């Protein structure tokens, strides 16, 4: 699904933010991406959603070398990736409904289908009554949920979520994690950047740990084991 080989990234003339990143994510896998603030999680995500090209190294996605791909193909590829941005990036002039509908519209799906899908998903994330509301009049958590809904609406093959529960309480956070789990079971590869220890502990997926620009993969912990330990 995703293969990084000796990948490095620097912004402008600054130092390398990511150095020698090497990893492979299998299709249908589920990963947490963690690491201290400023360690490069968002930067790594950016490379994965094709928002930047790496300054060096080889990125292979969906079995194709990104560096040599044509523009049109890149666009098609991006349509298969859902992203929850750390700062949401909602379109402020569009209602919650239109924001969530955007990926389907870009894919050129019929309006009827869009309406049904979007309405149902907004209901699911608890925003059924806010579908005609503009982002700027929503609370932080509501905006975050719109961003999540937008990322998953087109049932992407790859879902990248950057701190998707930072503004949400545990209850709704877990609910959304379950949404990601369902998506994962339908075949979507998922990477979630998070600082939330509780969620990482609850859902025992493998962790990619970033520290000062280098990546370390921790084997998935046996979380039932951990949970049992927690009880005693």
């Amino acid at each position, binding site marked *: 699904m995703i293969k990084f080989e000796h990948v490095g990234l620097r912004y402008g003339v600054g130092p390398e933010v990511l150095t020698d990143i090497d990893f492979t994510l299998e299709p249908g896998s589920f990963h947490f991406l963690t690491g201290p603030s400023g360690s490069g999680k968002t930067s790594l995500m950016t490379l994965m959603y*094709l*928002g930047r090209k790496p300054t060096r190294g080889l990125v292979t996605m969906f079995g194709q070398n990104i560096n040599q791909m044509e523009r049109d193909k890149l666009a098609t590829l991006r349509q298969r990736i859902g992203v929850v941005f750390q700062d949401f990036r909602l379109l402020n*002039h569009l209602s919650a409904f239109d924001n969530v509908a955007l990926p389907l519209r*870009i894919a050129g799906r019929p309006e009827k289908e869009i309406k049904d899908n979007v309405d149902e998903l907004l209901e699911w994330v608890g925003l059924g009554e806010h579908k005609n509301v503009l982002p700027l009049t929503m609370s932080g958590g509501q905006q975050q949920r719109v961003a999540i809904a937008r990322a998953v609406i087109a049932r992407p093959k790859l879902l990248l979520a950057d701190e998707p529960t930072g503004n949400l309480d545990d209850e709704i956070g877990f609910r959304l994690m379950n949404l990601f789990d369902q998506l994962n079971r339908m075949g979507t590869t998922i990477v979630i950047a998070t600082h939330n220890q509780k969620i990482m502990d609850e859902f025992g997926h493998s962790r990619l740990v970033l520290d000062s620009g280098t990546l370390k993969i921790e084997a998935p912990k046996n979380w039932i084991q951990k949970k049992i330990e927690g009880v005693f």
Partner: protein
Amino acid sequence: MNPFKPKKDRRLGVAEGKRQYDLPLNKSIGTGFLVVLIALMTFLAIMALGTSFALGSMTQRWSSGLENKATIEVPAEKNDSDLRTKNEVNALVERVEQKLSDQPYIKSVTALDQGDIQALIEPWLGQGEILDNIPLPGLLSVELQISNESSLAKLTKTLAEIDETIRLDTHESWLGDLLRLTGALQFAAGFVLLIIGFTTVAAVAGAIRTRMAVHNEEVELLHLMGAGDGYITRQLQRHALMIGLKGSLVGLIAGLIVLGLIALIAGDTGAALLPDFHIQLGHIIGMIIVPTLICIIASMAARFTVLRVLAQMP
């Protein structure tokens, strides 16, 4: 509950409802300014075109009406400073008239009435019988078939044969000046049109680039969500086209109104400078071409600007 389970009726969905822009273009700051600018450009173009057309038909009128005309003067004094009598002058004028009316290169020749000539001098001498006693020059107005070197030479020769003192006065020099002036003005009008074209391209390109800068985040987001260049370009291009349409229509109407007013006023003053502005098919086509061209320019300028900006995104 699984919101991702496909439902049957979803697949049967039909495209309906009106699509708006994904980008907040309509609320964009500067749209009004751009419309006004394009309206102004169109207005100027229409004025330039109108001027050009008016000058064109004026030139035509002059060329056809005056270029082939000349005035012949039979002076009241002979070569040797002696005066001619009135009868002598009249005889000479008659001879010239007869002789010239035979010539094939002359279209018409008319002797000016003595009364006409007296009217010209009257202010200085007052009216009265004194004029009857003063020997006045004789004047003839000639119209040539074509006014070229050879026919003028022939005319000069014919006149010299009749009498050496007869003077020929063609309108060539001042008419040439006027034609050169209108030519320059028409050239200026063309130049104005050219500048208008460039300004429109520059303004639209600048405005679109500004929009791209203002809405950079939105454009980038669409790009990241997999919207193709065409998808994004289409929105901005349509936006520019709408602005172009609005602006150029306003400009066209304003221009036509002002041209109409000028024609009306000029008609009142006797059309001395501006000739009656015959609406010809060519003029109508020209007037319609201006807004069309401006719309095309605006939309193409938008297209290339957007594509250039998008090319910088990975």
